[in-house]
């Protein structure tokens, strides 16, 4: 299948972007930056998918990965608050072995890609990718899927709300008591009983 020149140019730019940002993930000094570099890599691949007319997948990639990377960045900040990566860090082990493994895998897979013969069966012209995906995914059972999805989400929210009493905003100790440092010991990282006379909690 032949693509117009402009598509090829776009593809080249996006491929470079995807690889460079994918590589930057592991050599930036802040984890928040790392997760957003990964997001850029995902977005570049998503746009390539749209160029390949997988329009649903490409766009789904944007929003799935945006939320996922956002959560990832927040988890980083949860474990180490580090605005703007103020305190940079280098956290690498077995460096040489990893580089060798990465290069080896690239060479093997790249060799397979270049040397093997794949059938040349481009998309039929009358194919509607989104509809075909929807039919394959859900078939005729769309209603069942959708109601099951909503029920599941409701259950999740309900469980979170119930298990944390008033969630993030109230007495939540019962729902999220961490285990003790030794079996049967006091919970880790929890305040001592009785300090911080807690009228502002109970009011």
């Amino acid at each position, binding site marked *: 299948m032949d693509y117009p020149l402009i598509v090829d140019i776009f593809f080249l730019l996006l491929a470079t972007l995807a690889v460079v940002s994918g590589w930057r993930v592991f050599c930036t000094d802040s984890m*928040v930056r790392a997760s957003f570099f990964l997001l850029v890599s995902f977005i570049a691949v998503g746009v390539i998918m749209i160029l390949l007319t997988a*329009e649903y997948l490409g766009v*789904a990639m944007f929003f799935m990965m945006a939320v996922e990377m956002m959560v990832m960045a927040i988890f980083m900040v949860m474990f180490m608050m580090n605005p703007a990566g103020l305190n940079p860090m280098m956290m690498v082990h077995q460096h040489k072995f990893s580089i060798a493994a990465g290069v080896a895998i690239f060479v093997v897979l790249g060799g397979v890609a270049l040397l093997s013969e794949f059938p040349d069966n481009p998309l039929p012209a009358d194919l509607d990718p989104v509809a075909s995906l929807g039919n394959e995914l859900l078939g005729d059972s769309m209603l069942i899927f959708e109601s099951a999805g909503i029920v599941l989400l409701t259950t999740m929210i309900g469980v979170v709300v119930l298990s944390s009493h008033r*969630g993030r*905003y109230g007495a939540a100790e019962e729902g999220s008591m961490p285990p003790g440092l030794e079996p049967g010991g006091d919970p880790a990282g929890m305040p001592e009983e009785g300090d911080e006379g807690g009228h502002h909690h109970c009011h």
Partner: protein
Amino acid sequence: MIVNELILPVILVTIVLVVGAYLVAVIDGMIAAALGTPQRGGAWLAPLTQGAWLLTQQANATEAPDWRAWRLAPALYLALAATGLAVVPFSPTLIPTDLVTSVVLWGSVEALATVVIFLHGWSANTLLALIGAYRYVALGLSYILISMFVLIGVALPAESLQFSQVVASQEGLWNVIRQPLGLPLFLIVGLGMTFWGPFNLADSRDLAGGTASTVSGPSRLVWELARAAMLVAFSGVAASAFLGGWLGPWLPGPLWVMLKMLGVLAVLLLLGRLLPRVQPERCVTLMWVVLLPLSFVDLIWAGVEALL
């Protein structure tokens, strides 16, 4: 072909975005004046003079910011607003980007907006901006969920994820009547994702401007412009998803879309001036315990209607 597919949409989106953002500032100024804010000079000139002042002001620095992200975030937010506006169909033929999954694309604009707003607050490396960024992230997920459920509701009768099909499916009856819960929910999400008025938790007064608290000069201008532009893009999506887009008697389609967008904008800006800022804790509860279940009800309503 290039003219029709590339240049024309870009020009259209740019013009609507710039004019729209200017109108947002003008309408907001007019509402403020009507509600008693003392003002000198006309509402039409005020945004221009304000913009000119920001252009003459120097951009400042903070201690060790993430320069790239800090300078890029306002531009990225503006780009997201442009992407959002690009999926709005202005007439059956005049559609900047007629992607078959344009409803999902709008969803990803909302998701990426969360990332960009977080970056804007995080990269400044100051306390108040960082708190603003956290707050938006804590709420962003609930905005995305509610908006996706509501938009799936309008996609069901259209049997398509394409905004032009969604508009076409409202030929007989607009979605605002067919799914009465949809538009109010969507408007609340809109105030949330542009952090405007009652849901302005990211750039709020108690944070001295939140994510924008340490930004000055041209980058602040771009950020404020982007916020207004996002409001414009949102009103475009709301007009096509619920108010029948280009449909309407007498007037040409694009004019109808613009009028409906103006209507949505006026409602949003008025709400923004009338309501107090919702406390973050209450906002989280409101989103997850009240509005999200309501969006399920809206979706089930839409599904049952589509089956009948």
